[in-house]
């Protein structure tokens, strides 16, 4: 059983999203971690973001390095992706698409959940 599931539900403009990413990186140093992007958290994965003119940090550019941190399981929900009219090609990293029941199973397949 993987140890920690990180659930990211905030849009990329929130400092909570960036701080959630920091927590994921820290978690990956100590445990087997997976990450799922739900709700407006899905938009953290959109490719080609540029938040710097807004004074933001393009922390999502760091998602490409998640594999190097041992976070190879990146998930989002197919229904939410379709509803946002996004496709896999629009995302900045490879993800596994899960249906609603599989998301519930994901919660139960981890020892602990940290939500951001």
């Amino acid at each position, binding site marked *: 059983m993987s*140890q*920690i599931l990180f659930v990211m539900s905030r849009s990329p403009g929130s400092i909570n999203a960036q701080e959630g990413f*920091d*927590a994921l990186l*820290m*978690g990956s140093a100590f445990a087997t971690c997976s990450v799922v992007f739900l709700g407006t958290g899905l938009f953290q994965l959109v490719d080609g973001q540029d938040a710097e003119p807004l004074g933001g940090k393009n922390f999502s550019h760091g998602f490409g390095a998640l594999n190097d941190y041992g976070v190879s399981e990146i998930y989002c929900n197919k229904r939410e992706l379709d509803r946002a009219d996004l496709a896999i090609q629009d995302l900045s990293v490879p993800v596994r698409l899960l249906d609603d029941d599989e998301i519930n199973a994901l919660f139960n397949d981890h020892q*602990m*959940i*940290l*939500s951001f």
Partner: protein
Amino acid sequence: MKFAIVVYGAPYSHQASRSGYLFTRAVLDMGHEVHRVFFYHDGVYNASKLAAPPQDEADIQADWATLGSTHDLDLVVCIASALRRGMLDPTEAARYDKSADSIADEFSISGLGQLIDATLEADKVVTFGV
């Protein structure tokens, strides 16, 4: 059972802090252990020693501090979240040459590793977000 409680809300702008406080008290009342309370995002503001709310209003920062000292709780404020929000202990205030420190003695400032440690050590993790 061992609980880790995570608080993301600032004292007055959201109920998360009050909910986390009441839950923490209930955990203790029922004889369970509070491994750590970790304050992240705007939750770091709960550690302020500079708040001066009106006398006829609840003082949630003082409530957390009293709970922490009464039960010898590990109340931890994330250093990265704290620094960007102006929450500093004396060491950090000196390091960054700031005119004051703001964190109450009942809280300690530490890294995200303490959140991960709490998550791995506790039997249950409960998060009070906004």
